[in-house]
């Protein structure tokens, strides 16, 4: 079954409606992209805080979203994003997995 929001096959939808396998794909892609964008030598993990720990600015955050859209072939509902509720890489992945649709 395809989610009307994510447009991807749902094989592991959790109680919040988030597609777990897709969310994990977003986590991995976001971590890889952050290593690239931040020019980091160390790995980036799901529990890392975007602003306080990784020093991701608003602008860099938008670039991250844009690259996620391109790599995952999705469109993210950025207008629905509440930045106060997105602290970690994992929070971002949860939002993207539940507020995006495939092209």
């Amino acid at each position, binding site marked *: 079954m395809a989610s009307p929001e994510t447009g991807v096959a749902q094989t592991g939808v959790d109680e919040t409606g988030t597609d777990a396998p897709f969310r994990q794909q977003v986590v991995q892609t976001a971590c890889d992209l952050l290593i690239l964008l931040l020019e980091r030598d160390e790995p980036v993990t799901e529990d890392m805080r975007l*602003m306080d720990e990784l*020093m991701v*600015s*608003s*602008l860099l955050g*938008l*670039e991250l*979203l*844009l690259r996620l*859209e391109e790599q995952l072939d999705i469109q993210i509902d*950025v*207008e*629905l*994003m*509440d*930045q106060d509720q997105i602290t970690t890489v994992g929070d971002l992945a949860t939002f993207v997995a539940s507020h995006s649709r495939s092209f």
Partner: protein
Amino acid sequence: MTALDSVAAYQPTSRRTVEELAGPLGLSEMEVKLFRRFHGLREICIDPDTSLTELLLNAAAGLDLRGRQHRVRYVLWARAFPTVVPFPGNPLHEVCQALGLGHALAFTLTQQSCASALQAIDLAGRLLAADTHADPDDEPLALVFTGEKAFTRDAQVLPGMSLFSEGASACLVSATGSRDRLLAYACSQRGEFDPAGGGTPERFQSEYRPLLAQVISRALAQAGIALADLALILPHNVNLVTWQRMCRLIGFPQERVLLDNIAGNGHVFCADAFLNYQTARERGLLADGDRYLVATVGAGHGATFAAMVFQH
């Protein structure tokens, strides 16, 4: 009570797309995509053949000044940039001469960058309120201009945030008018964002929306109304995503923020509020008695966050 008696705005018809600007402005492919996808910027107005003086006169042409020139005591020009022409040129004086306003006290405000327009409206109202006049039919007026050319790269792009567009506005202000009455003005000048004092773009970006929300809240409190009482918000046209997020932050429906001019006009320095006002009037978005809010941010050496509440 300070009021806007009439408002006119002008933008050149000559336009350039974000893609056309990429080369001259040195924008990366990613920056172009960001401007398009998230910032909602499609094109800007820029006309190298139109002078600053012509920009202001084109805006003033939308006002009916005939027979009222003698009532105009002050002419204010709100700008983002302190210096716009080589000495001894002075477009404002040229405009005053052309409009028969050589008698008026004319000066420029730039200290609050793109927020200077609201400061100019407030100042014009206070200057007029302090004036005396014997004949009620000769109530003094102030003419407030905005208008800017995007001469240099710094004047054309706010990196990662916005693209500037050329345009101008002219607004007749009175101390006691009834057309668009100023109910409240809140302003917060934040010197800590000045890079010379250690301010960083990251800090500015992270505090931008909360600080703008604060002045909006202060303006509403001064006006004695709630956010839900606003018929419309006329924003500065910095970009789309900033206002989408502002709406979520303050809990205001995005449909009641006039964002349609961002894509095709870009950020027109101090003139956004007046261009958006003109659009709101043309579309019949303001009914008699409606309260609306104008909000803007001026950034440069420090930042100014400002908001005004009007009743139409």
